[in-house]
Each structure stands twice: as structure tokens, then as C-alpha cells.
């Protein structure tokens, strides 16, 4: 059974159809990329999956459960974590605190135990910290641990966002343009980390990406969109050479 299924999803904003009748499936364990010109509806699809927008029609199924109408905050609990195109970090806090917030879905404590900081809360905090440190080690963020986000360069922030999403320990990771704003060196690092995340941690990745080299290198399958409609799905080379895709990018 597929990990994630989108069936005929559509949404429009004030008469403009941002996404119309798009269907696709994501298999467990793969890296699935979404490509397309600006305004094709890629980020909108992410916002639909993470339930920031409501679909007008169609269904979303994750891990056998219908998530079309679940509240936004439940999505990460079910195992979907995401990053944002222009980074949405907690700017006035340290990297460490940001990542600890990423652990929030695994919270067992409640308000009253927090108020008293019971031993169980302390144990939970230690466990969270251990998890955070594992992620920090994986993505090489050690030297930024105690720095406030607002003081960090953009490339590092992007990686911190990936790290924060990993702290959720998701089954499905949504990366919105992970390489935008990164220099070539950082982009190369990113491709290795994608491999690690996908291969070692076994996390399924869906990413929106403009860098075709990275897409070709990292992804198992690619979906191309244009003007909110699906154009082609297939292996990177299939999609890259698809006549409709070429037309969408280059015009007639």
C-alpha cells in the first residue's frame, strides 16, 4: 500500500485554480520530487498536505488514514513534518530550543507536571535532548547549537529547519525548496544528507525543488506541474524529456 495518496485534489483562491484535479501517490521509502515553473502550485500542494489550506475537493490519505479534514496540528502527530520555502523558524530562540520544539509531538507531560517539573518531565527533557543531539550530529550543526536563529546565515537556517522537521521523527518529510539560497557547496552537502535521511533513517521524502541536478541525483520519481495541473509523473529522466514538460518550461 502506498504511504501517501492524493486523489483529485483541487483548490482555488478567488477564482484562480491554484491546483486542479491532481492525483499522485508516494511510496514508502522513496524520494519524490515536485517540479514546475513558478506559480505551478507546488507549494500549494505542500500547504494542502500539511493542512494549512483546506482542499476544495479530493481526498488525502496518509498511512491508510484519511487526513483530508484533520486539524493542522494533528498532521505532525501522524508523522508528516515539513519545512518552509522562506524558513519559518522561531527567530528569537536558539537552535537548540527550535529543535526541542520540534520534539513537541512526542510530549507526554501535561501543564501541571510541567508546572512542577516532575521527575517524569525531567526524564522526558533528557530524552528530547538526546534526540536533538542525534539530529545535530547527523546534520553537523554542533557549532550553531546555542546561537539565536536571527543571527544565523540563511543556509544554516535552512538546515536548522530540516533538523527541526527531523526531530518530529516523521515517516514523511516535506521539503519546500531545500536548496534555494544555498551555495553550490551547501547544495552538494544537502544531496548527501538527503541520502542519509532517506537511506539511513528510512524517511520518505517529498520535495519541491528547482535545481534539476539535485532532483535528478536524489529523487526516485518526479512529478511535473504546470498551472496547477499535473503534466507528467515518472523517473527523473522520463520527466525531463517529456515534451509537455519542456513546453511548460520553455513555452511553445
Amino acid at each position: 500500500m502506498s504511504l501517501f495518496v492524493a486523489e483529485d485534489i483541487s483548490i482555488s483562491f478567488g477564482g484562480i485554480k491554484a491546483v486542479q484535479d491532481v492525483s499522485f501517490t508516494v511510496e514508502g521509502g522513496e524520494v519524490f520530487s515536485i517540479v514546475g515553473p513558478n506559480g505551478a502550485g507546488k507549494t500549494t500542494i505542500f500547504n494542502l498536505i500539511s493542512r494549512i489550506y483546506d482542499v476544495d475537493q479530493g481526498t488525502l490519505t496518509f498511512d491508510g488514514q484519511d487526513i483530508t479534514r484533520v486539524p493542522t496540528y494533528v498532521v505532525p502527530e501522524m508523522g508528516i513534518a515539513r519545512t518552509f520555502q522562506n524558513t519559518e523558524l522561531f527567530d528569537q530562540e536558539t537552535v537548540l530550543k527550535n529543535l526541542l520544539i520540534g520534539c513537541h509531538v512526542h510530549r507526554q507531560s501535561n501543564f501541571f507536571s510541567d508546572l512542577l517539573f516532575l521527575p517524569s518531565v525531567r526524564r522526558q527533557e533528557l530524552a528530547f535532548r538526546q534526540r536533538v543531539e542525534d539530529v545535530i550530529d547527523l546534520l553537523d550543526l554542533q557549532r550553531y547549537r546555542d546561537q539565536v536563529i536571527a543571527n544565523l546565515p540563511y543556509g544554516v537556517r535552512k538546515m536548522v529547519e530540516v533538523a527541526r522537521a527531523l526531530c518530529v521523527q516523521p515517516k514523511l518529510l516535506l521539503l519546500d525548496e531545500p536548496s534555494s539560497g544555498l551555495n553550490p557547496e551547501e547544495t552538494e552537502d544537502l544531496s548527501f544528507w538527503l541520502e542519509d535521511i532517506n537511506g539511513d533513517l528510512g524517511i520518505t521524502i517529498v520535495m519541491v525543488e528547482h535545481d534539476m541536478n539535485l532532483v535528478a541525483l536524489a529523487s526516485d520519481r518526479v512529478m511535473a506541474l504546470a498551472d496547477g495541473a499535473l503534466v507528467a509523473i515518472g523517473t527523473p529522466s522520463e520527466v525531463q524529456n517529456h515534451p509537455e514538460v519542456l513546453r511548460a518550461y520553455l513555452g511553445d
Partner: protein
Amino acid sequence: MEVLQLLISGISQGCVYGLIALGFVLIYKATEMVNFAQGDVMMLGAFVAVSFVNLLDLPFVWGVLATLMVMGLVGALLERLLLRPMIGEPHFAVLMLTIGLGFLLRALAGAIWGNEPRALETPYAGEVLRLGAVVLGYENVVIMLGTVVLCTLLFLFFRFTRLGIAMQAASQNQLAAYYVGIPVKRIYSLVWALSALIAGFAGVLTAPVSLIDPLMGFVGIKAFAAAIVGGFGSLPGAILGGLLVGVVEQFAGLYLPTGFSDVSAYVLLLVMLMIRPQGLFATMQRKKV
């Protein structure tokens, strides 16, 4: 007939709220700053008018014009001295700053003019206009007419003058306005000047019907409620919200137990925020990611 009478005095009071609210909205739209001291600026305007008309014995019309000019200057000065350093600071900080400014203006007015209530001498004091069974004080007629005239002028200003259009541009996108060569900072000063001028005008209009003292600026809070009811960020909304608050207040005073009249503006605000948080004329949207 009582109802009609109430309605009219509500509308006239509402016009004053509306004008103050207009000042709020103008500043907010252009600079995204919230000037909580707008009511106190109005108070200042009333006192300045008293100085010109009562103390310096200028003819009424000239006194009013002088007041408007002084208030425009005051507005620009406030922007330059206090608000300019706050560009780019969080909204909350600006809000607090203008609250502080309100305290300061009140103290200042108390120091200069004293805490005794005063009244503005007007050529039309005490005269009434009879329309059938309805009796209208000239003060109220002037308030309503004044509001209509000012709103028309503002509409023409924003619609047809270069400056007005530049102000609109600056309010819609600061950065883009910079890029097309609009001097955004100078526009800000002008917006503050304009809004202080409007507040001063409101002060002059309301002076004959309510006593002038340093605490009269507190109606600014009701006007604020009015601005939000109208949909913060919409100029017609501000006037409409003001009228609504004014009328509701009058009727609450008559039909509900004591105390309700004072809070009716706030109750209206809370109800509005619950059923239609974006106000009558919505201009807000949610942030995009």
C-alpha cells in the same frame, strides 16, 4: 420623534468618533503604526483652538485655520522626533510608545492650560435648527456638515492628487514605493501631519458640545473601538464604525440600565470581533507561507 432625535445626536457624536478613527486608520494604513494617542492629539487640537479663538481673539474661521496648521505641524514633529526612530521596531513597541505619548500630551496640556474644563466660543453657539418636530443644535449641524466636507476633500485628495496617490502606494508596499522613488520617510511625516490635522478638526468640531479638558482624549479609545468595528485599515469603515458606535451609545443610554452607555462601545467591539473579526470592511488577510 424621540428616536429620531436620539439618532441625530448619535450620528453627530459618531462623526467625532469617526474623525478620530479616520486618523488612526490613516496612520495605520500608511505606516502600520498604531497611534494610541490620537484622542489626545484631538484634545490638543481643541486646546489650541481655545488659545486662538478665546485667548487671542482671532475670528472663529481664522482661528480654526490656524489651529489646523499648528496641528499639522505638531503631527509632523511627533513623527520626526518620536516615531522615526521606531521604524522597523515591533508593532507592540510602537503601541506602547504612543500610549506613553498620550500620557505626556495630557500632562503637557494640564501644565499649559490647567485642568479646569473650558468651552470654545463659537459664533453659532446656542442656536438651533428646527426641522418639523426635530430640534437640531447648530453645533451638531456643523459637526455633521464638517465631517461630510472633510471626507469629500480626503476622498478627492487620495483619488486625484499626486501626493495622495503616493501615500496610498507607500501604504501598500513600503519597499516598492522606495524603489519607484517615493520619499517614504517624508510621506510618513505628511501622513502624521494629515492625521493630526484631522484630529485637530475633530477637536474643534466637538469643542462646543463637550467641555475641553486634558482628559477629553479618552474618547480616543472609543474611537479606536469604532475603527476596529469598521475594519481597521478602511477609511469609509472608520467613519461608518464611528457612526455605529455613536448611535448605539445613545440608544443604550436610553433603553438600558445605567453604566451600559459607557461600555456599549466596547461590547459592540467585542461582539464584532467575535462574529466578524475583520470588521465591516475587511482588509486583512492571513500570512502566506
